[in-house]
Each structure stands twice: as C-alpha cells, then as structure tokens.
C-alpha cells in the first residue's frame, strides 16, 4: 500500500505534508485539491513531515488536503514517438493540451499508446542480452529507433522469445527474457527512467575526438567543439545568445537536436515552434522539426518544473545516445535552472552560498555536464551527447557563481562580448576570451589533420595570433593616435579586421551565410591566411583602412554567394586584382584563387 499524507503547511510552492508511512527523498506525490491532482517532489524529510516542492501553483491549497505518494522518483517515459514533440519540463505533451491557457493538474501522456509501429526484431531467442542492448527497431520519422532492453536491467539475461516482424503498440509485449535466476520479464517498446540518474547502459566513455560541425565559423574554425563535448555560452542580455543557439540547432551536424527552453521567453520557443516545421534540414532533406524534440518550460511556467526540465532533456538525450545516435542537447538558460534551485533553497531556509545560491551549486552543475559525452556501446557502435548550455550572468559579470561553476565543468567557452554586440559584430563571440580545450587534445589535432588538412590546428593558432596582434595594434593606435604609430600597426590591425569581418562575423539571417560547411571555411581561412601573410605597400595610414574596406567588402559579398558559383568566382577574381594593386610579395596572386 502506498504512503498517504495530509497537508499541514504551505509557503508559496513549498508544502509540508504529514505522512503515514515511509517516504523517499525526491519521491513524487500528488496532492488532491478538490479533484485536481498537483504533482510534487519530496525535497526534505524531518520526522513525519515531508517537504515537497509543488510543480504547479499552490493557490487555493489548504491544510488537510490529501496527498498520495507514488513510490518512484521523477521519471520520464521513453519509447518511440518522442521525436518532433513539444514537452513541458515534466514531459507532458503540450500539443495534447486543448485549452489556450495551461490548466493546473493537467498531465498528458508523453507517448501515444495507440500508434502502431512496424517492429523489425534485431535478435533471436537464445541470445544473451543486458541493459541497453538492441532487441528491435522501428522507424521513427527518419531515424531507426532501437527498442532496447530496459536500462534498469541488472546483469545479463537470455532471450526466451521475440515476436515476429509486425505492427505493435508501445505497450505490447515484444520479447520475453529470462534472467540467471530463471525469472521471466516481458519487454515492451517503452520504459521509464528517473531523470536525475545517469543512464549507463554502454561499455565505456572514452575521450571525445570527432569534430562536430556546427556551420558557425567562429565555433568550427576558431574554437571547435567535438561530438560528445560540452560547451557554454555566457553573455549579457542582448548579445545574441539565443540567436546563436537557434543557429546551432538549425545547422549542427547531429542526428537529433533536443532543445531545452528553460526559464526563457515564451516567444523564443514560439519561434522554434513556428520555424522548425518549415525549415529544411540540409542533411536529411526533411523538415528540421523531424529531428527535434523541444522541452519547454518558459519563465512564467512553474519554477520547480523548470529545474526538472534540464534533467528531462538530458535523460531523453541519453536514451537516444544508447541507440547509437549523435545527439545535440541545448539548454537555454542554465542560469534559470540555478535560480530555480536558489528559490527552493531559500524557501527551505538553508544557509546560502554566494549570491544566495545553494552551496552545492558547483557540484550540481558539474554533475549535470558530466552526463554528456561520447560512448562506446556494448555492440561496438558509438553514440554521443554534445551539450551546449547558455548562461545569463547577472549584470554581465562573469565572476558570478553560475558562470564560475559552469566554467569548471564545460570544456568550451564561447564568451559573448557586449562590445562586439554594440557594434553589431554578430555572432558576438569574443575571439580572444573564448577557448576550446579540445584543441589541446592530441586525438583532436590528429583528427583535424586527417579530415580537414594536415597542420590545420596550427592554422587556427595563426588566425588567433593575427587577431590578438590586431587587438594589440588597435589598442596602441587608440593610445598614440593614428599617426603616432608605425604604418605597420595599421596594416596589422586591418588584417585582424579582415578576419573578423570575413570569418568571425556571420549573418544568421542570410540564406547562404547562415551556415558554412567546414570545406568552405577551410577555403576562406586559407585565403585569408595568404592575404595576411602578404606585405602591402602604402604611402600613409589613411590608405590602409580604405583599401582593406574594399577587400572586406568583396570577401563579405563572397560569403553571401553560393560556394564556388560564378558570382563567387567573379568576386574572387576581383579580389585578386585588388590584391595585385598593393602586394609586394613575389607570390603570384593566383595562389589565393579558386582553381
């Protein structure tokens, strides 16, 4: 018999329940308010009192309301049919809710129980299996959705029977397995899993090494992220954080995108809802929405569910990773998640850490980021979760607790700069402050040598150096005046401007420029490095800016044209003519032309 209880105290969404039996920390219960069931999670227990955070508004709740405990933690339902869905933070299907306004206590099933899926079995009776092994597959949209042995299965089991290929619903028994003690268990296409527990149904988690193409030059070229890597984007508001995340979700080379809109603006999610079903996915030729799952808990939705939403997203990602897919998980913004933790910690009257955040914030963040990664599955396949979170630092100050905690956990850092944003240099990722730890991995350097070109990592460093030198030259010019510095300073500065305008800046709203394949990035980088390696002759500094502006103009127009189309090549030739005017190298201008 399940534990029951009665409400004895209420402060905002923290409710105290006197229980009549055993309760577990983080156990889920439902409080009955005149027939409306309010979902809540136990967050503290003292004696007979369980403190629960309610995932809904507690308006109208009173002492004496009955509560029923479910005996399990906060769980998600995993199975075919999650793709293209819009869930709230607790995995309720938002599209199944009919009314315009969210109704309290309305919970909708995550999966459709009546849909028939065409199951193709992948194993035969007699096989030995363990948690996460593939027993069959169904077509979910364009992906092969693997039906797996439930992740909670301990040890190995023998398959007693498997159904024949055919159409089944998620709750039909599709296989029977026998464990070593002879106990039989019926397997269906669905399973449940507690969101705060990492899925570990894989062989091991090696260091990641494969570059994940995002189509964003400032990331791919300068600070690449890898499949299974982690990164974060901090930045003051108005710096284009969300535009950058949307660009990543549209163009990144992954099989599946999970977007967690965590405590952010509803209209931003609406943008995804509206655009993704229309946008083409360049990889599959289908609509972008068909490889996307949205977990949406906007800022005005209940705070406690906001905390759950990032875990819900991660667990779904882990489920698909175990199928051998490349998953990109984006969370916007993890600061809102941290704030949700703070609000609860405050109500529980815990002693606060810095800025009133809970003391264990760092540990919670690190633990969450560690769930991403590249894995080798038991069957030799691989899968990955690349996680990129945004952080919204209070007052744009990167020394605040959430940014600091995240910096310790994430391997790539894409700092958005207010200055760049003010001068409309988008994406406003600061090339000097940002970094990718993966560029230090020998296996990544080796991978770049093989897939892009030998010595690519060195070229990245050359670009970075040119940018840094340009910044230093610019500082000197600002201090000493245009004519107070050698002419060479102006050239150095303008070379870095060239890189800035042509590589770093990218128009997210232009059809062609919005995404650049690595091949094209390679072409442009080589072109720019050649230009930057050249000597130019100028009579005075006033000529420098004008000349480089012309060059930038041509190269920018090239960015707007299809790669190697006639217009592109025409501009390329114009550029060569322009270069020939001022170049003093023996090097022929052809050296930088498309062949």
């Amino acid at each position, binding site marked *: 018999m399940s534990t029951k209880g009665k409400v004895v*105290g*209420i*402060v905002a969404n923290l409710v*105290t329940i006197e229980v009549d039996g055993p309760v577990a920390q983080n156990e889920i219960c439902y409080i009955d308010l005149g027939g409306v069931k309010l979902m809540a999670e136990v967050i503290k227990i003292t004696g007979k009192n369980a403190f629960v955070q309610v995932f809904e*508004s*507690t*308006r*109208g*709740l*009173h*002492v*004496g309301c009955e509560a029923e405990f479910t005996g399990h933690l906060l769980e998600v339902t995993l199975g075919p049919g999650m793709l293209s869905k*819009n869930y709230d933070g607790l995995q309720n299907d*938002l*599209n199944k*809710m009919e009314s*315009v*306004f*969210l109704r*309290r206590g309305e919970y909708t099933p995550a999966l459709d129980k009546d849909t028939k899926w065409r199951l193709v079995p992948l194993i035969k009776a007699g096989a030995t299996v363990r948690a996460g092994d593939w027993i069959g597959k169904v077509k979910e949209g364009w992906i092969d959705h693997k039906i797996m042995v439930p992740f909670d299965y301990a040890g190995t089991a023998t398959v007693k029977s498997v159904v024949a290929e055919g159409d089944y619903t998620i709750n039909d028994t599709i296989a029977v397995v026998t464990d070593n003690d002879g106990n039989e268990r019926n397997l269906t296409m669905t399973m449940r899993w507690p969101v705060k527990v990492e899925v570990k149904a894989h062989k091991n988690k090696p260091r990641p090494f494969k570059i994940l193409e995002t189509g964003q030059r400032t990331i791919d070229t300068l600070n690449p992220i890898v499949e299974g890597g982690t990164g974060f984007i901090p930045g003051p*508001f*108005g710096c284009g954080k969300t535009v950058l995340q949307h660009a990543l979700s549209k163009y990144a080379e992954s099989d599946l995108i999970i977007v967690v809109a965590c*405590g952010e603006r*509803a*209209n931003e999610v*609406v*943008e995804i*809802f509206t655009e993704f079903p229309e946008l083409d996915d360049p990889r599959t030729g289908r609509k972008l929405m068909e490889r996307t799952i949205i977990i*949406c808990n*906007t*800022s*005005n*939705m209940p705070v406690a569910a906001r905390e759950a939403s990032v875990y819900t997203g991660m667990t779904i990602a882990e489920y698909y990773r175990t199928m051998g897919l490349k998953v990109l998980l984006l969370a916007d*913004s993890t600061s*809102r998640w941290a*704030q949700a933790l*703070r*609000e609860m910690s*405050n109500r529980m*009257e815990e002693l606060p850490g810095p*800025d*009133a*955040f809970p003391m264990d914030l760092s540990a919670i963040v690190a633990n969450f980021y560690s769930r991403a990664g590249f894995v080798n599955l038991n069957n030799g396949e691989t899968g990955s979760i690349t996680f990129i979170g945004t952080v*919204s630092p*209070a*007052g*744009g100050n990167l020394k605040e607790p959430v940014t600091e905690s995240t910096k310790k956990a994430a391997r790539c850092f894409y700092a958005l700069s207010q200055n760049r944003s*003010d*001068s*409309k240099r988008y994406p406003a990722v600061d090339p000097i402050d940002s970094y990718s730890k993966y560029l230090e991995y020998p296996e990544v350097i080796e991978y770049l040598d093989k897939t892009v070109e030998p010595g690519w990592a060195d070229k990245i460093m050359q670009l970075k150096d040119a940018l840094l030198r340009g910044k230093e030259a610019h500082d000197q010019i600002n201090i000493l*005046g*245009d*004519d*107070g510095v050698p002419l060479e300073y102006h050239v150095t500065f303008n070379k870095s401007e060239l890189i800035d305008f042509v590589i770093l800046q990218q128009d997210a*709203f232009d059809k062609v420029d919005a995404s650049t394949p690595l091949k094209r990035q390679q072409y442009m980088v080589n072109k720019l490095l050649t230009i930057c390696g050249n000597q130019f002759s100028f009579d005075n500094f*006033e000529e420098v*800016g*004008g000349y480089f*502006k012309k060059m930038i*103009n041509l190269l920018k127009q090239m960015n707007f044209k299809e790669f190697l189309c006639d217009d592109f090549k025409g501009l390329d030739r114009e550029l060569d003519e322009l270069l020939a005017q001022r170049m003093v190298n023996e090097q022929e201008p052809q050296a930088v032309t498309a062949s």
Partner: protein
Amino acid sequence: MKTKAFQKIYTHIENITKATCMVEAEGITNEEMAIVDGRPAQVVKIVGKKITLQIFPGTQGIATDAEVVFLGRPPTLKVGNELKGRFFNAYGDPIDGGPAIEGEEVEIGGPSVNPVRRKQPSELIATGIAGIDLNNTLVTGQKIPFFADPDQPFNQVMATVALRAQADVIILGGMGMSNDDYLYYKMLFDNAGALDHIIAFINTTDNPPVERLLVPDMALTAAEYFAVNQKAKVLCLLTDMTLFADALSIVSNRMDQIPSKDSMPGSLYSDLAKVYEKAAQYPDGGSITIIAVTTLSGGDITHAVPDNTGYITEGQLYLRRDTEIAKVIIDPFRSLSRLKQLVIGKKTRSDHPQVMNTAVRLYADAANARTKLENGFDLTEYDRRTLDFAKEYSRELLAIDINIEIDKMLDTGWQLFGKYFSKDEVSIKKEFMDKYWVGTAS
C-alpha cells in the same frame, strides 16, 4: 473558487509585524484574500492552524483584537466592457467617482498561456518615431521596457507611442506614480479623445507601496479579458517596474527571506517574468503588448532589476540627450527590439534590415571619431564625414519628435548615405545598391 455563503470571522491576532499578522484559523486556503480591521490582506503562509496574512496597507494601528474576515477567494477583478474609460486603484475599485463595475469576477494572476498555443508575433506597431520604427521596430505581443533615468522624458514618449499605436484598448498600470504624472496621463488621454478605450489601475506614491504588487496583475487580467474574449489588440503600459520590484523586496524582507543581489528577493526573475510573459499573440487574433518603464539609477543596468528585466523582455529602449542637436534621441547602440526580425524586410521594404544596420555602423564610426577628437587626435577625412552624417542622422531620424512613415525613414537613410559616403563605405548588398543608391556612381 466559489464565494462562500458565510464568512469566517476571527478576532484574536497572535502576532503582528510591520507588514504581516498571524491568526489561528481553520479551512483557510493559500493566497486567499481577507479583511483585517477593514484593510485588504492576503494569506502568504500556512503552518498548521497558524495563518500568516500580508496586510497591504501596513499594520499600523492594528490591535490584537481586530476583526479578521476571510473572503474565501484569491484577489479578483470584475471584468466587462464598462472597464473602458475608467480609473481604478490597485484593488480594482473605482477612483474616478464612477459606479462600481458589474461584471464577471475573475481571479487575477491566472494561469500562463500554453506556449504551443501562442502565435508568433508578426504585426508591426508603427509609432512614427524612427528611432523605434526603423531601428527597434515594435511588434504586437511583444514586451519591451524603457530603461531610463528618472530625469528623462519616458512618460511622454510612452504616451506618444500609446496614442499612435492604434491599439483597441490601452491599459495603464501605474505603480508608485507621482500624482502629477497620473494627472498628466489623465489629461493627455482626455485631450486626445482616447479616454473611451483607456483603462487605468493606479497606485500613486501616497498609497501604500505593497499595494503595487497587485497592479500589474490587475492590469493584465483586464488585458486578457479584452484580448481573449474580444480578440482586441491590447497595449499595456506599466510604469514603473523598478518600484514594483522595490515592493517585492519590502515584502520578502519582512518575510525574513534571504536577499540575493541588490537586496532583491531570489525569486525576482520569476516574479518579473510572471508579469511580462502575459504579453502574447493569441491564436484567434487578440494580443497583449507590454511597454514598461524600468527606471535606472545613474544608468546602471547591472542592477538586479534592469538586469533581470533585460533577460525577460524582448529588448529595451534607451533615451539619451544628444547635445549635438539639443534633442532627446532613442539611443541606437543600446536599444534593441528582439522581435524586429519578424517584421523588418518582411512587413516593411526589403532593404530595411541593411539600411538599419549600415546606418548604425556608420553612426558607431562617428562615435569612434568623436573619441579621437576628444583625445586630441587628428581626424581623417572619413572621420569628419561620419561626424556630419551622425549629426544629420540624429536630427532627421533618431530624435523622438520625428513622426514619419517607415518608407520615408528608409529613403532618408539612403539620402544620407549618398550625401556623405561612397558605395564601398556603405557596403550594402548589391541588389539594394542598384535600386536605391542616390549618391555618386563610385
């Protein structure tokens, strides 16, 4: 929540603080309203039988034997067409001497819109002010504040925007408004003949500060009624949200909560978001647009209130006095309308985005040139041209007294480009250059 046939009355208050009192009572629901010694109050905490009430006007003079009447319902507002043209206090009671409203009684601060039922905002709000329409275009369903120092004329600009915006209903939520400002709005709306579609909920500085907390919910509940039931285009003006946040901090302080940044409650973000996220484009035509004011202290946007606001709202508008032209302008650098991408170049002429960006870029070059000048460096010929451009751009487009159509703004932009710059310096996509360039050929 049904109003009960009989009301529970208690006359034994256990303890009293500055803002709250505690009584022992049974069957009381969370967030329910009560009257303590004739003053409105709300249940904020329940521990067993001990009910803590927040008394909006403060507890001064309340005795331990004062009468406490529980109303059995959360705060409500009576909605109906009669709301139009009326002025109310924070509790939704008329303050204009008119009769009480007879209408449907709805709970304030109701549930959020299901995000999948929202429509993407796509209807442009034209204000005639180029600093807004050209550079920071507003869209229905948007929420955007003015970040302004108290000495700036934000009330005037907001009123101008409201009157030109062609909204079906304008709702003013005044929090901690000075009586003078209240009378200014009243007079302005009256003179414009707009009073028949104005509704105001006003908490002036002579009212208790904690009452302000009800104002946005009142205003937005009325807004939802018109936007949902009558499919109206509602424009909601909220001024001043900083004073709203101050009231939040007073309450959290008196409830012994641990303050986070700038002595604001840790829940500030969620509290503000609950208000601002009521802005929405509804599926069948109605919309709520929120234009708010967040006053800054000395232009400091890192303070918790503007900072959290910036993360919630879809952009922000800054006013700045341009001494070159002796006028107040909409600052093109720091102002931003996030939703403008949904309309510019789509609902407006296709060259709009490029003209906008180019003008701002050239204006930024002018700012650099000015820095150089101030530091005593020589200016290049290009620098001097940018300075001339900046002055004219500021006067013809950025000033808040501009009132022209958007096409005219774009044409003005092209004229200025042609007058001061060469084609290379302007560097706009060729297709637009071919069509609109009015300068010299090179």
